[in-house]
């Protein structure tokens, strides 16, 4: 077996993930390389979910009975864990949503309904990039349509990085918000936060960072990022589906208007008017995803028990190995940075003129799960003139042997359609 420096003890870790033992297609061992779409869940998280429902389940807040108090303590305890995980200055800056997409829509809608100085309107500009996930494109397109603001974006270089050469023309005095992805889910690119934040601060624009592909894979420090908002999603970081996070700077959360209205987010309601609870509750209408927050808390405990820096080192080693092995495959073209520097653990590629659907299908027949398509980042495919890519993406349980299986699988694909 290939040994690389920096690897985690995947043999032990994989025992925590029941699904990794699964066999598919009549006895083939599952090789799960679709981690950028969603991660698998360790037993520790599943146990936390079951325990929550079997012992503590109740609606949170406002309850004076034991279960309600315990459930509230668990739910709010999960908020504490998230706050610590991202080094938030205050736990009250952590808003639970249903996924990263809701988090990003929440920011767009806060700004759409805000008063000055935050208000986005026809005099102002919104900046994104060409490598965003649709969830960080469409909310801003909708906001631009509905407010008359102008949507601008950074283009991409041929090697899959942001083209910041015209940064001063893209981000201008009119820019109200710059929203961009920290790690691209399709290209794997890790973006240069500092340069963008510096320019945004120069012109007084807010900065929103989509950290959906960063939070699961590397230490995340919202203070070091110097952003105003950071969004991510639980299901990609060992947590359950149905839970996302928006972190926002306290004074912004105080100033900005609510988005969804309902129970939990109010201070006092009469038929004529209502006042709102302080953040984070102001932005959490209705019964929150309680069990899912608790599950996310357990996922964070799990990640911390391994250490985010160790997880990063593991994935860097795996990614480096994968880049090396994949470049050996004839006709394979990596879409995105062709080296392992400043890139995350998702690698997109094309294989000659074999359509990614066919690549994925034939890999699947061998038990290898990859994702094919535009990966919710169709502008990237348009930019590089391809209909789709095949994407292999790794996580803390990925092994060199799985990379080897992928490379062999790709050889088989080439022969099959050759």
């Amino acid at each position: 077996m290939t040994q690389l420096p920096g690897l985690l003890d995947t043999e032990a870790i994989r025992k925590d993930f029941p699904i990794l033992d699964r066999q598919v297609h009549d006895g083939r061992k599952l090789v799960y390389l679709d981690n950028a779409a969603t991660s698998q869940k360790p037993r520790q998280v599943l146990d936390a979910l079951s325990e929550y429902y079997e012992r503590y389940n109740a609606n949170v807040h406002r309850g004076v009975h034991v279960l309600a108090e315990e459930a509230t303590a668990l739910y709010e305890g999960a908020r504490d864990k998230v706050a610590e995980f991202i080094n938030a200055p205050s736990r009250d800056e952590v808003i639970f949503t249903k996924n990263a997409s809701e988090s990003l829509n929440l920011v767009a809608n806060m700004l759409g309904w805000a008063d000055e100085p935050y208000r986005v309107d026809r005099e102002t500009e919104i900046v994104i990039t060409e490598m965003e996930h649709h969830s960080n494109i469409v909310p801003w397109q909708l906001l631009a349509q509905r407010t008359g603001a102008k949507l601008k974006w950074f283009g991409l270089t041929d090697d899959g990085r942001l083209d910041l050469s015209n940064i001063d023309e893209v981000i201008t005095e009119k820019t109200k918000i710059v929203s961009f992805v920290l790690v691209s889910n399709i290209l794997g690119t890790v973006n240069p936060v500092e340069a963008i934040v510096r320019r945004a601060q120069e012109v007084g624009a807010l900065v929103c960072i989509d950290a959906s592909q960063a939070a699961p894979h590397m230490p995340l420090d919202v203070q070091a990022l110097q952003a105003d908002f950071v969004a991510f999603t639980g299901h990609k970081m060992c947590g359950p589906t149905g839970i996302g996070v928006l972190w926002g700077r306290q004074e912004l959360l105080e100033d900005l208007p609510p988005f969804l209205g309902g129970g939990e987010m109010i201070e006092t309601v009469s038929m004529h008017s209502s006042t709102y609870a302080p953040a984070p509750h102001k932005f959490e209408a209705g019964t929150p995803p309680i069990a899912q927050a608790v599950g996310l808390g357990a996922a964070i405990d799990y990640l911390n028990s391994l250490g985010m820096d160790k997880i990063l080192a593991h994935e860097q080693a795996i990614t480096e190995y994968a880049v090396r092995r994949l470049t050996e495959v004839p006709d394979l073209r990596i879409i995105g940075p062709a080296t392992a520097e400043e890139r995350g653990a998702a690698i997109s590629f094309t294989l000659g003129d074999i359509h990614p659907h066919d690549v994925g299908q034939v890999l699947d027949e061998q038990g290898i799960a990859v994702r094919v398509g535009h990966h919710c980042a169709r502008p990237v495919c348009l930019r590089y003139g391809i209909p789709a890519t095949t994407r292999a993406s790794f996580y803390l349980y990925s092994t060199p042997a799985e990379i080897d299986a992928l490379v062999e699988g790709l050889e088989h694909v080439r022969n099959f359609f050759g």
Partner: protein
Amino acid sequence: MYQEVILDHYKNPHGRGLRDGDAEVHHVNPTCGDEITLRVKYDGTTITDVSYEGQGCSISQASASVLNELLVGKELSDAQKIQETFLELMQSKGRIEPDDAMEEVLEDAVAFAGVSKYPARVKCALLSWMAWKDATAQALGGADAERKTA
């Protein structure tokens, strides 16, 4: 699912390329970016040509080739029957085992029976057939010719 017949049609497509036609449609499968531009030519109700151009996976490419082979020269009513039979087969989730009667209608297209087990690929197999249906409606004056496949 990759029957020999499918691979053959994929590697050696029939009637590929855009030629003169009475109507043209452009369909996309948004999930994977498969695209087809397709033209139909009629002489009365006889299909004299189905020409197409596009990009896509082996399934969508082979399916277009099979369509061309099957439908060109047919009467519209026969072609519609073939299209409906193919649709039924593709929506069967692998539950239809094509019998002789079906094979007689579908010829090479029965090779797609296995694809129907793969929901993500059914749309690929149907792309050209939906495009043909729309183009035909347009050429012969039917309704909603502009509708894209979902």
